[in-house]
């Protein structure tokens, strides 16, 4: 029998204590143990970006991190970013610009785009594409996503949407 590992972490500001099997990855821990199903699981090998979350402020692939590695960490998921209102303008821009269709990639896109906007106030389209280059979207063709991120950047720096 493989022993469980005890972890103590914060998820969206709430303290969580859990016993997890070593093989459980963070994405499955969030989805199945905490029922935070906004974090999507596509490829499970780091390629699609649908599972992107924040760990201690940095965006990471939750399919490539073990739940056991999150002891002491602070995790923020799309639920946390939505509920706090941190990305409400970005979400509105995605709606207005048709930057989502099926929505599968959207949580990862939002978390990744917000990461860029926190680092750079005025990224150009090239920078936006580069930062989102690890996130797949099979519906939109990306143009509308870049539009939504660019217009949010403009609005946040007071240059109009």
């Amino acid at each position, binding site marked *: 029998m*493989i022993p469980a590992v005890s972890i103590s972490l914060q998820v969206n500001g709430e303290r969580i204590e859990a016993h997890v099997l*070593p093989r459980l990855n963070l994405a*499955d821990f969030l989805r199945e143990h905490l029922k935070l199903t906004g974090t999507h699981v596509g490829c499970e*090998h*780091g390629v699609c970006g649908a599972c992107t979350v924040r760990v201690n402020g940095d965006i990471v*692939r939750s399919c*490539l991190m*073990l739940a056991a590695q999150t002891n002491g960490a602070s995790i923020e998921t799309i639920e946390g970013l939505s509920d706090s209102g941190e990305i409400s303008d970005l979400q509105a821009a995605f709606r207005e610009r048709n930057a989502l269709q099926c929505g599968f990639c959207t949580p990862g896109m939002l978390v990744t785009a917000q990461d860029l906007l926190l680092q750079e106030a005025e990224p150009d389209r090239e920078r936006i594409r580069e930062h989102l280059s*690890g996130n797949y979207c099979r519906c939109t063709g990306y143009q509308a996503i870049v539009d939504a991120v660019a217009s949010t950047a403009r609005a946040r720096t007071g240059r109009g949407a």
Partner: protein
Amino acid sequence: MKASAFSYARATSVVNAIELLAEHGDRAKVLSGGQSLMPAMNLRLISPELIVDIGDLTELRGIAVTGDRLRIGALTRHVDLLNSADVAKHAPLISEAITHVAHAAIRNRGTIGGSLAHADPAAELPASMVALKATIIVEGPAGERQIAAEDFFTGIYETALEVDELLVAVEVPVAQRNSAHYFSEFARRHGDYGIVGLAAQAVVDGDILTDLRLAYFSVGDRPVLAMAATKLLNVAVTPAVLLEASETLGEELDPQEDQQASVSMRRHLAKVLLARCVATLLGRPELSAGEVL
């Protein structure tokens, strides 16, 4: 897919990690950033019985300059290399190479030690270490070994590391006043592994190359240090000289064929990179104008 079951140990010190590796041999795997190991486990390409997580070993993290050496700890993340003023000043080749490694979310976890130990022949950092004449420092039950980067990479995903050894750091000589570098790769998308890439480190004296190390990646089972460089040393580089070097390069490279590129396409791209590299290092754009292939 999901990884198969394994046990998990959080190493408490370098010595403790080495003890665990010595005890479990090739049934154990070191977990650093997990950005190559976890995909391989999730795809069940490998199924280790024990994961030794070295993430808490803060002594393996960090970048320091001592004398004429830049030392980078194994746990230093790609993003730390990207943002380091010391790396930008003393080993700008690394600062440039790292922008081509994966994507932001992966660079936030992936480490230099993991990248070098993983030894993907298409990876940017191993070739950069060969170009920079880096020394790779490993520690095992018998103590420390220092291995030249050229001798460290021994095949596809294969290195000189023994199963009970930990890569602890890498050291590179700091750039000199007339050092110059060049890095470029052809990739399907930014952040993908290169189809063919070149990491080069040089010493330029006026318009003469007095030293040149051309480390190609994705053209063999490990980084390839091209001997064609010798044709370009201590001579006035004319189109004819460059053509001769280019032909030598074509003869010495023995690239693989895969879904991404044929053998002849890889050879061609390697020559294009050579011309661009020399043109950039010498500040003579006409040398890469196209004829010299």
